[in-house]
C-alpha cells in the first residue's frame, strides 16, 4: 500500500482540525498517556453521568496518526456506558493490531477504518492506540475509586 493511503483524507482532516480538544474541570475520568518512542503525550478527560460518557476531551501533542485517532475516538465515546466504552477499546485494539478486520458495514467503524493503514506500519500502531489505552487506564482508575467508595 502507498503511504498516501496511510495518510488518508479522513485522518488529515481530523489531524488539522481535531474534535473534542480541551480540558474539563474536575473530570471523573482522567489519565495521562505517554509514547516514549516519540515523546508524544496526551491527557484525556471525561465526565460520567448516569453511568454514561457525557463529555470527553483530550489535549496533547502528537503526530497525525495519534491526534486523528484521539479525535475520532472521543467523537465515538459520547453516550457510551463504561462497559460499552471498555468493550469498544478492546475491539479497536484487536483491529489496529491486525488481529481482526475492521467491519466494513458499520457506521461506527466507518471513519475509524481510515486507520487500518497503520497495521502495515508496526512502529506507528502505538501512535494510533495511545489515546485508547490512555482512556482505558482512566476508566480503570475511575472504577477502582468507585469500588473503594462502595
Amino acid at each position, binding site marked *: 500500500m502507498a503511504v498516501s493511503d*496511510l*495518510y488518508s483524507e479522513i*485522518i488529515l482532516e481530523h489531524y488539522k482540525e481535531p474534535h473534542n480538544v480541551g480540558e474539563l474541570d474536575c473530570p471523573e475520568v482522567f489519565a495521562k498517556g505517554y509514547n516514549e*518512542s516519540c*515523546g508524544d503525550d496526551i491527557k484525556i478527560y471525561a465526565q460520567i453521568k448516569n453511568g454514561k460518557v457525557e463529555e470527553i476531551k483530550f489535549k496533547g501533542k*502528537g*503526530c*497525525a*496518526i495519534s491526534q486523528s485517532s484521539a479525535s475520532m475516538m472521543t467523537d465515538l465515546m459520547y453516550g457510551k456506558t463504561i462497559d460499552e466504552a471498555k468493550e469498544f477499546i478492546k475491539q479497536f485494539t484487536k483491529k489496529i493490531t491486525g488481529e481482526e478486520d475492521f467491519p466494513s458495514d458499520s457506521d461506527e467503524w466507518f471513519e475509524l477504518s481510515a486507520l487500518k493503514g497503520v497495521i502495515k506500519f508496526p512502529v*506507528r500502531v502505538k501512535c494510533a492506540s495511545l489515546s485508547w489505552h490512555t482512556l482505558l487506564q482512566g476508566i480503570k482508575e475511575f472504577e477502582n475509586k468507585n469500588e473503594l467508595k462502595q
Partner: protein
Amino acid sequence: MFDQIKIREDFPILKRLIKNNPLVYLDSAATTQKPLQVIEAIEKYYRHNNANVHRGAYTLSEEATSLYEEARLKTARFINAEMTESIIFTRNATEGINLVANSWGRANLKEGDEVLLTQMEHHSNLIPWQLITKEKGAKLKFIPLTPDGKLDLTNIHKLINEKTKFVSLVHISNSLGTINPVEDIIQIAHSFKIPVLLDASQSVPHRRVDVQSLDCDFMVFSGHKMLGPTGIGVLYGKYNLLDNMPPFMGGGEMINEVQLEWSDFRNLPWKYEAGTPHIAGAIGLGVAIDYLNNIGLENIQQHDKELVSYAMEVLSNLDGIEIYGPKDTRGSLVAFNLKGIHPHDVSTILDEYGIAIRAGHHCTQPIMRWLDVAATVRASFYLYNTKSDIDKLATGLQKVKEIFKRGS
C-alpha cells in the same frame, strides 16, 4: 584521497533497497554504517584469533591481547593522547561519562560544590551529573544558549567560579549542530584549576581532535559513530587524574592481588576495564580508525562541510521549513521541522522513499523545550553521503508536504 565512488563501494549496506528504493542513509549522528574492512576484521578475529585477553600463555590469547592493545595504541595516536595508558575502552561515550561522574565525582564533590554543564547536553552528559550531584548535595549549573543555538558566554566568568569543581560539555551538539568554542572554556576552567570533560561523540568522527592541543582533561566518544561497531567506546583522561581516581567497576581484569577482604588494583588503563572487554569491538574500532586515517580526516571534514552547506541551501528553499541551530558554521547535521507536520509523520513518509532520517527529541529533551517543539527531524551526513542524497531528501520533503496538503 577522497574517492567517493570507491568509498561508497566499501559500505555494503548502501546497496540495499528499502521499499524498492536505494537506501539514502541520513542518520549517521545516531550511528554510522560500517565499511567492509571493519566487518571483515571483526569476522576475522572471531574466525582466527578469538581468545580472552591478558594472562593467557598460549598463542591465541597472545594474539587477541596484542590485537586489543594495538587498537588502544591506534586510538591514542588518533586523538594524539600523550600515552596509551590514557585510553580506557568503555561501551560507549555514555559509559565514559558515567565512569568520570561516579569515580571522580564521588571522590571529589562535596555539598555546595557546583558542576557546570550547558543547556545543550545530550541526556548522557546530564543524567550522570544529576545523579552524582544529588547524592553529594552539589549543584548543577548550565551555560545558557543564544537565540541561534550557540553557547551564551556572556556570564561565563560568573558561572565558572571558586565553587565550580568540574565542567562537562559537548564539543558539537547532536541536536543543533553547534560547534562549541571548547578551547576558550577549557582555558577559563583551567585558570581556576577545574578539570573539563568533552563529549566528543559528534566531533571525533568528523574532524581531527587533538587532546593535547585542546588540553581537555577527559574526553569521551563512541566507536559506532565513527564506522566502528556498537558496544565499544573510549574514555581519554590525563594520566594523573585517572591514576588518582578510584575504580568505577570492580571485577576481573582490573586487579593485581585479591584477598577476601581487600584487593590491589592494576595500573592504567586496565584499572578501569573490569571484566572481559569487547575485544572484537576494540579491534573493529582500530580498523575503523585506520579507514578514517586512510581517507584523511581533513578530507572528511571538507566533504562534510560542503554537504552541510549544500543541505542548508537546498532545505532553506523549502516553504514552511524551520531550521534550528546556527546558520553559519555547524557540524554535519541539519535539524528542522515542516510547519504543521509532526516529525514522525515526516519520517514514515520519507521511509517510503528509502530515506532514513531521525525524528524525535534526539536525547536532548531540554533543547526541545528550549525550541518549544515536541520533536525535530534531523538529517545527518558522513563521508558516504552525496549531494544527490540531499536532493532526494528535498524531493521527499516535497512529497510529505503534498500528502499533508490534502484533507483541508
